[in-house]
């Protein structure tokens, strides 16, 4: 069974805050849910399916259903880090196609800035029972130095340069200047990026995404309900998910799980990369975008550096407009999990509701891709292709 045209994204919301000193975590989830329901033109009582991930407080879906007063007949707390919410859209479409729910709500929220979390630069430890921790944590794996090892290997094998990676940030900054909510709105140059301090060789400060508080929410519903609403119709066309890891010691940092999730999504949607008018690509770091674009088939393996250079990702100027909200690199990376906002901007593009300066003309097929965990160790990859009717 395919999910193609079986479910529609009817509501999206990106919380406008970037620093939430006054809101609780549960409140941010609920405010985001309200925003997405209002966007769709649906009521809280219409929600019968709920999806959240590891950022939800307490007992996750149970605590949030309690806080929001939801009456549910379907719940899914699939946790694949920042890619979770892209997978949630696909799982919601599956649940709707199977008749398990009619209106699915997906929420994300976090407040790492208000809590003063050293997000990317403190070694991460998922607890002593995580089977990898004893063999990794003593060596000081931070988020940034793990991704940096992927970048270093890509440079070694394919000659990718820091300047090529910098073009990804440059493109994001060109888009962010038009987003009044973006954390970083200044347009930067390649020289700005490669001249910014090294955090972990070869990644500079400006190769890294922002740290922001906030959240977002998505409403997925059945075709009949979507058609009854006063919003542009955005059908789910196809999706793919994959987990990539160290493969028992056969480590290869030159590719991601997008190598598997991408072809699955394209096959289900019945489209190819050349049909895609806009992409939201998870951009925790510049290298994340470059390797993902290769793995999704937008260019050959190893050619990502050449592909992204010279403004190729800038809307209106380049061949493949990406992250027109400014992405995680400039706009927003709420809860250190960027998958949900990737879907939100893709839906804006398909509806024609992106900022006029970055709106892609005739945007009828868009792709959103999430990466959760770490390219340097283990990660979830999720590809979602949506259309317009």
């Amino acid at each position, binding site marked *: 069974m395919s999910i193609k045209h079986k479910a529609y994204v009817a509501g999206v919301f990106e919380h406008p805050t970037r620093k939430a000193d006054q809101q609780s975590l549960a409140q941010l989830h609920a405010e985001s849910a309200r925003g997405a329901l209002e966007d769709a033109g649906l009521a809280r009582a219409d929600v019968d399916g709920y999806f959240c991930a590891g950022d939800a407080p307490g007992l996750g879906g149970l605590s949030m259903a309690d806080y929001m007063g939801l009456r549910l007949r379907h719940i899914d707390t699939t946790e694949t880090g920042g890619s979770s919410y892209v997978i949630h859209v696909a799982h919601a479409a599956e649940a709707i196609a199977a008749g398990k729910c009619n209106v699915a709500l997906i929420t994300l929220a976090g407040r790492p800035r208000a809590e003063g979390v050293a997000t990317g630069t403190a070694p991460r430890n998922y607890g002593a029972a995580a089977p990898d921790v*004893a063999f990794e944590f003593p060596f000081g794996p*931070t988020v940034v130095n793990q991704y940096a090892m992927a970048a270093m290997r890509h440079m070694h094998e394919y000659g990718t340069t820091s300047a090529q990676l910098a073009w990804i940030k440059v493109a994001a900054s060109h888009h962010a200047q038009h987003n009044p909510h973006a954390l970083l709105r200044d347009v930067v140059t390649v020289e700005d990026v490669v001249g910014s301090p090294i955090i*972990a060789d070869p990644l500079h400060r400006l190769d890294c995404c922002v740290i922001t508080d906030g959240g977002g929410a998505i409403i997925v519903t059945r075709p009949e309900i979507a058609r009854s609403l006063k919003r542009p119709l955005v059908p789910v066309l196809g999706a793919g998910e994959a987990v990539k890891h160290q493969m028992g010691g056969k480590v290869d940092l030159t590719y991601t799980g997008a190598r598997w999730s991408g072809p699955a999504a394209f096959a289900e949607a019945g489209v190819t990369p050349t049909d895609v008018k806009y992409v939201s690509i998870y951009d925790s770091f510049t290298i994340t975008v470059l390797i993902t674009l290769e793995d999704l088939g937008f260019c050959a393996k190893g050619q990502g550096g050449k592909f992204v250079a010279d403004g190729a990702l800038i809307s209106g100027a380049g061949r493949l407009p990406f992250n027109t909200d400014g992405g995680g690199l400039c706009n927003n990376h709420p809860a250190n999990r960027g998958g949900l906002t990737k879907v939100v901007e893709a839906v804006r593009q398909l509806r024609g509701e992106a900022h006029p300066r970055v709106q892609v003309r005739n945007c009828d097929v868009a792709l959103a891709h999430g990466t959760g965990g770490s390219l340097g*160790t283990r990660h979830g990859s999720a590809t979602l292709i949506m259309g317009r009717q």
Partner: protein
Amino acid sequence: MASDRVIPPPPTSPETQPFWEAAGQGKLLLKRCTGCGELHHYPRAICPFCGSDRTEWTEATGRATVYSFSVFRRTPTPYAIAYVTLAEGPTMMTNIVDCDLDAIRIGQPVRVVFKPTDGGPSVPMFSPV
């Protein structure tokens, strides 16, 4: 140098205890599956390649080459995280130590050295040959 950094102790378990005891004697152990013959790391009771529970410990030579690395600069004591590919095949996460961090290169031959941790067993790091 990484050896100046306080190394957090690895949490140990019965499943991995032989690895840490050997590390204390300066030996690097790998797991080999007698079902499929594959070596793997990090060590598991159950082979990640074939699912067999017939895994056994085997001693590695400690010779390796640098697969990738990154010097983390945003800390008072910069250190080099790395993946090294052992002569026996598996690639493992580690630190490159006792060297000029700016001279580390992918493909460089390295050899295991064991470094003390803060109250736990020693851990395998690597230094240039």
